[in-house]
């Protein structure tokens, strides 16, 4: 691989920060930067210029209906699971692991408590997804009475806090194919896990959603029978 010294790095730095340095030279520049604090400082002082230049862009109006066409295309292309912002990652790492552990325990508990019987699956489960398709948790519903619903929402607090509505109240809407939806107050939104008993026919539940005070759906799960 090509190697850069400090002089070559200084010459390549403008193209590097503007994002046009060819691949082999970019690799050489990055390799040099890893071991050269002085050049790191030089490049850092230039970083951000591209952002500022792009913000000077002349504006122009697209044709009428542009925003509706974009919204329609968002419908066709749901967002995938995406990483959390880097700035939050350190703060959340321990919490995220803890939540993952809770989710795993819930799954084990669900299998132990409800599984192991012959015949139909003992519980149904589904991934809680936002409208954009981002997974924020899981839900499990026992298929036999007494019906217990368990929800693990490791991504919930992050979503709510980053969105700026932490004081919003939320409910769980349980949709079923034998009657109107049931709304259950969500007594905890701390993201860890939430368990409640339900007085419904468990086999009729098709979908579980979290809705806010305005009735907007924040995330939902289609339930699928799980192996018992």
């Amino acid at each position, binding site marked *: 691989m090509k190697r850069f010294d400090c002089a070559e790095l200084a010459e390549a730095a403008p193209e590097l920060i503007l994002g046009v340095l060819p691949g082999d030279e970019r690799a050489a520049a990055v390799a040099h930067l890893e071991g050269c604090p002085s050049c790191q400082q030089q490049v850092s002082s230039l970083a951000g210029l591209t952002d500022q230049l792009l913000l000077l862009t002349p504006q122009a*109006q697209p044709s009428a209906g542009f925003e509706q066409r974009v919204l329609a295309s968002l419908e066709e292309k749901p967002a995938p699971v995406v990483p959390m912002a880097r700035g939050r990652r350190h703060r959340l790492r321990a919490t995220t692991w803890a939540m993952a552990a809770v989710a795993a325990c819930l799954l084990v508990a669900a299998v132990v408590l409800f599984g192991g019987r012959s015949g139909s699956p003992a519980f149904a489960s589904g991934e809680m997804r936002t409208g954009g398709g981002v997974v924020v948790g899981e839900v499990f519903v026992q298929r036999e009475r007494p019906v217990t619903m368990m929800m693990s929402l490791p991504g919930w607090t992050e979503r709510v806090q980053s969105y700026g509505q932490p004081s919003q109240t939320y409910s769980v809407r349980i949709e079923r194919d034998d009657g109107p939806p049931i709304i259950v107050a969500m007594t905890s939104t701390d993201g860890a896990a939430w368990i409640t008993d339900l007085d419904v026919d468990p086999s009729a539940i098709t979908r579980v959603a979290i809705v806010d005070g305005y009735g907007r759906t924040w995330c939902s799960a289609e339930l699928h029978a799980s192996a018992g």
Partner: protein
Amino acid sequence: MWNASDEALVAGLGAGDREAALVFIRRFQSRVFGLALSIVRDRQMAEEVAQDTFVRAWRYAGSYDPVRGPAAAWLLGIARNASLDHVRSTARRRDHTAFEALEDLPDPVSDDAEDPYDALAPVTDALRSLPEEQRQVLMATAYYGFTAREISEAWGVPLGTVKTRLRLAVHKLRDELTGVPR
């Protein structure tokens, strides 16, 4: 929602909130379309690119890091990449020479008195203070994604000269913006 910060709207996008998406699109469509139009030079193609930009933003909102810069710059970076991808994929790059691109580059000064990015006036001033040959090289790379070698070939200027102009432009711009005495 309409008064939400740019960063809050990106968070809304990451949460799959379509109302946030609508506000976000309305707020930035003229900037995104303007940049796309500057690069691809065709209104229909620019609309495709602008649409693609918002779809990418929707998909990758969760990767946005406020620490690394404002949401507007993040979005315009996506728009720039989408525009360059489009130009390259349609093999228009060869026809779309640096000369052609640069000669009628719109003056990057906003006339909108309500523009939330008025704070960028010093950047505009610094850009205008650059010698013309340095400013052109900087525009060709920052907006049009041309490498120094491509500019060298397009303009018939030695590669070393192009690199020197670019380096001087970037450093002068930085010094102007950070108040470093020369």
